[in-house]
């Protein structure tokens, strides 16, 4: 996968269900093309400490319906800019899911995970296998549609279209 690290070993920041895009990045900060503004306010209404404790490469873990609400692509961009390397959730809201893949932020769906706050995870994006080294459990993520794998392999939709000119199945 060009531009995307496929093997990630990092710490999990774990949050709950239905984290909406207003909580990922409030609407008042979205009108910008300056990515550092986004990163400075990421998750601020949910956990004001997040941007102080997150380290480059860390993993964000959530429950069901992650990213519901607005279509703002600033949500995955803010997470990516803040250093998040992959988002793992029980499931995702559909626009967030597409947006994340399109901007090259990997997302994995683990339907029944029980990952705890602070767990060390070992993620293989190629196989979708997630080892919870702290909890001692191994999970396999739901497979992405092929077109999404192709987009992610290129590092996002911009690279995919630059290379291919249009979509193909």
């Amino acid at each position, binding site marked *: 996968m060009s531009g995307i690290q496929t093997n990630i070993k990092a710490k999990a920041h774990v949050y709950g269900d239905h984290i909406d895009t*207003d909580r990922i990045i*409030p609407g008042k900060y979205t009108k910008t093309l300056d990515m550092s503004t986004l990163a400075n306010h990421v998750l601020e209404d949910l956990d004001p400490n997040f941007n102080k404790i997150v380290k480059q490469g860390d993993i964000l873990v959530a429950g069901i319906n992650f990213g519901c609400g607005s*279509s703002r692509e600033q949500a995955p961009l803010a997470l990516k800019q803040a250093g998040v390397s992959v988002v793992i959730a029980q499931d995702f809201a*559909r626009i967030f899911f597409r*947006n994340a893949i399109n901007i090259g932020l990997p997302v994995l769906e683990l339907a029944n995970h029980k990952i705890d706050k602070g767990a060390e995870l070992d993620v293989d994006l190629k196989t979708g296998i997630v080892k919870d080294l702290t909890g001692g459990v191994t999970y396999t993520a739901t497979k992405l549609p092929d077109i999404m794998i192709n987009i992610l392999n290129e590092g996002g939709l911009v690279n995919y*279209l630059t290379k291919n000119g249009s*979509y193909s199945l």
Partner: protein
Amino acid sequence: MGQTISEKIISNHAGKKVYAGELVISDVDGCMASDTTGPLTIKAFREMGGKKVFNPKKCALIIDHAAPSPNERIANLHKMMRDFAKEQGMRLFEIGEGICHQVMVENQYVKPGDIFIGADSHTPTYGALNAFACGVGSTDLAATMMTGKIWLKVPQTIKINCSGKLQDGVTAKDLILFLVGKVTVSGATYQTIEFTGEAFEGMTLASRMTIANMSSEMGAKTGIVHPKGLKLDYDFEAITPDDDANYIKSFDFDVSGLEPQVSAPESPDNVHNISNYEGTKINYAFIGTCCNGRLEDLDIAAEILKGKKIHADVRMVIAPASQSVLLDAISNGTMKTLIEAGASLITSGCGPCVGTHQGVPADGEVVISAANRNFRGRMGNPNSNIYLGAPSTVAASALEGHIVNPKKYLL
């Protein structure tokens, strides 16, 4: 095998018969971005090598989320959109022309049977028109503007059948709030909702837009109101589902006894009969948005407020969904009634809905709003609480200073 409305519309565009679960690359009939998503769309369009949009007549940009610009940063983003529209020969809807979804429908950028892609999560609103419309993010939209296409997984369909007629004083908003409460905020993720049954058949286009709009609050890819009873100013061929179409789930509700509904903080599916919240003191009442800023919404508020003054401890903000709605509300006297009652009129557009400007609530304040979302921080202050209700509920509550059932003012 029979097909749902979505399967039929997508089949018509993909050039072959398709069913839920299949991946298709489909032509689109129109696309748009707002000032929240447009600048990133333009940036992505350029980065992917875009030179010309696929068809300037089918692409639009709308300045509505922060209009007029509240600061220089946003002013510069608006300028970037104006420059791009000029360069591409496509229409840009200026500040005050209205909310993206309202102007797309009024200006016929979308019609029955179309596939429309919008860089805004409430794009499913056009399901009111018997169209298949979904929201995407900026990079997806840039790709659509460049290629005229979108990749889609044909969604499964949930059928929601509502029998019975709504009582007087109970509106489309009460019905859709009730349904969001039943289906929940993630109950329709990735799926289409087909709204069908007697309760929808007599609805105006405006009410149908309120219904389809809040499909987004159930996580749906889109929501389509059955075209039975749909009246438009032009002729159209209605797309109806086959009798043997396959639904992943069906709901049946008799809504003839439905009471006005309220969604309490801080999730749109936290819905209850209004009686549970009557008496809750409010500071701020808001009518507007792509959900409930149309003429019939302002008219019902005016009916309640005519000749009266809103409560001394309440302020009220009105944002008509478009300039055309505003002009109609001026001509029929509604706007005068609302302003005389003490409401404050702001520019047609999203206004305070998304917390950027034009009416952010203070700490500890309670808002009753005709919008579609009440997530924490939605209106710009995470320390305020937002209740959602019908425009009638908002107007009656503004009058009394607390949440109240509007029925007594409407019978």
